[in-house]
């Protein structure tokens, strides 16, 4: 018998999301695609956390939205608990929404300003547990609010009466209401004050141990995902350029982009901090609407060589790591 945890909870293979666009004059229109996500693969087991890091606009949110079928993926496969879900209609997707939830980037925009907290958190209950009566729902909402560290008495308050951190907790309670196994956390703390960020991250960690949740934790900051993640994937221009177990990635980064990102992370030890070498990336910030024949990072890569511009490097296992550490660079072994 296979143990449930052996099969991945979520498996994403070669996911692509291309947004068509039209620009130029009316008479000489230029058609093209924004390759927001361009071949992302990863898998995740129950209770695990995958960190996804990358600079703004590299397609992290789009990846999450495509996996959750909030936007139709252009290409690729997504399997949740072994069932293919890519491109399902809203109706067909409904049962899977109980397994997979999302916490949003902006705690101010992700709560309906006209609904009370009780209605916001109670809405998923209304949809997934139609048999529940009003009172039962209210009690359940209060339990959830308690769980995320909010005063359950504030059931009838409106989102604008809460601070950013509290609102993010409301968003977490809403995601938990359906009893999911997997939650996409899309930069859940980047809009918050630094002091509050730690509280929310701690809450997410507590909930993970308590409820055996799996997370896909999205951030643009490597230091944040380090201690919460089992695996970390680094995204660049719609692709994962390096993926490895968290410690391994920090100890032994192989992709030049990862190295550059890591060099920007401040170190606690002042001695090392002073001597720390920063790799400053030069060159144009690439745009996802261009097609790069070679390595998309070539224009900014400090180690670029001629062959880099000819064909794109594939995400390949680093020798001696049993393929758990993968990087998309011709010279990752060096």
């Amino acid at each position: 018998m296979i143990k449930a945890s052996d099969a991945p909870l979520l498996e994403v293979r070669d996911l692509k999301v291309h947004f068509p666009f039209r620009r130029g004059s009316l008479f000489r229109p230029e058609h093209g695609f924004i390759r927001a996500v361009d071949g992302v693969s990863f898998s995740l087991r129950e209770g695990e956390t995958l960190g996804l890091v990358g600079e703004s606009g590299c397609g992290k949110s789009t990846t999450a939205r495509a996996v959750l079928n909030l936007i139709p993926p252009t290409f690729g496969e997504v399997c949740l608990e072994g069932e293919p879900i890519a491109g399902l209609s809203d109706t067909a997707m409904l049962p899977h929404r109980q397994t997979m939830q999302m916490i949003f980037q902006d705690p101010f925009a992700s709560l309906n300003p006209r609904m009370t907290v009780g209605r916001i958190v109670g809405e998923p209950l209304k949809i997934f547990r139609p048999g529940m009566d009003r009172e039962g729902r209210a009690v359940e909402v209060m339990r959830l609010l308690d769980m995320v560290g909010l005063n359950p008495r504030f059931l009838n308050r409106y989102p604008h009466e809460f601070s950013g951190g509290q609102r993010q907790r409301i968003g977490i309670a809403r995601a938990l209401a359906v009893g999911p196994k997997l939650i996409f956390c899309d930069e859940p703390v980047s809009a918050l004050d630094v002091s509050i960020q730690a509280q929310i991250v701690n809450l997410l960690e507590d909930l993970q141990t308590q409820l055996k949740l799996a997370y896909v934790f999205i951030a643009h900051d490597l230091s944040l995902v380090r201690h919460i993640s089992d695996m970390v994937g680094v995204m660049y221009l719609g692709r994962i350029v390096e993926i490895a177990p968290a410690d391994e990635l920090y100890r032994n980064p192989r992709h030049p982009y990862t190295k550059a990102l890591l060099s920007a992370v401040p170190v606690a030890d002042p001695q090392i901090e002073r001597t720390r070498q920063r790799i400053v990336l030069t060159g144009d910030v690439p745009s996802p609407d261009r097609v790069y024949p070679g390595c998309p990072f070539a224009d900014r890569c400090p180690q670029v060589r001629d062959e880099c511009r000819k064909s794109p490097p594939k995400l390949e296992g680093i020798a001696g790591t049993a393929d758990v550490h993968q990087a998309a660079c011709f010279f990752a072994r060096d």
Partner: protein
Amino acid sequence: MTDAPVTAAEKYARLLAEAQQVRGTSLGRDAWRRLKRNRAAMIALGYLFLIGIGALFTPLWPLQAPRMVRSDRAFAAPQFQPAFTQTTTWIDDSGAIDDDAVSAAFGIRAADDPKSGWFDAFNRQLLRLRGAIFGRWEAASWCGCDMLGRDLLARLFWGARISLVVGLVAGLVSLVIGVSYGATSGYLGGTVDSLMMRFVDVLYSIPFIFVVILLITVLDDPEVKAGLSSWGIENRITIFFFVVGAIYWLTMARVVRGQVLSLKQEQFVEAARTIGCNRRRIIFLHLVPNLLSIIIVYLTLTIPRVMLFEAFLSFLGLGVEAPDVSWGVLANEGTQSITAVHIDWWLVVYPGLALGSTLFALNFLGDGLRDALDPRLKNR
């Protein structure tokens, strides 16, 4: 220490009672607070409220009967001496009400009339109450009389009922159609949206006044009338509501659709989809409540337009049918009575004032609401 151990369920049940005490300030309540600071809007609101109450309880006031023809008082000027007279004819000194007289003078059907409905019963009750309070007293012709000697003041009150109901009902009809249509079109987007909005464009390009005139002429045909009356539709005004409502929804649909297009990009809509809300839920429970401010403001602008349109049709003789009255009908009669020989100013001025002041008040209220509900003034 604590009393008996409480289960989680008991604990929350207890907290629930406390939670009912904590009421959040909804955005609506917030807006109301801001509106209260706007003097002009509050005066307008109070005025509209008074007019509404006045119109709703018209039979209660000691006014003359609106359909009482008295040839001796044709074109009688406003008169205040004496202010009240004890001259009602439909009630005798003992307080008994003559149903037939009431039916003729007020147009309120008697209880034994098979067509008598709940509204007639309501009016009869009010009249009875009036009889009990005021006896045979009634106001003199403070606003003068028309060419048939009917009291203008009474007719203004009875006309208010129709004018206001026309505005309100037609406004609401346009609101329901426009909001549903616009929000659906905007939320679905893409080809469906294009098709739905092209349809609106087509309707826009039809000159509606002709359609209305045609429709009303057709509906005036005795055969059609007989057919309609078998459906329980008695007068032209009912049809008018729907016709006008069906015209004025176009702009509402456009306005709402434009707002939905931008609103649906908001993250909370995506969040709603994530927790499994279907389209209908998102449109009517997430999007429309956030458009309430625009909808309300737009409604306060649609109502005056509908009332004016009714007045305009009455000018053409296509509006309310005699012996019913509306402000538009009264204004029309007033202007027609102006001749080179005598100018009965009261027949023009008072209906005009009633109509104008109501339209003004609605506009002031609309302006005030827009300021009070403007979400940009406050972070959401």
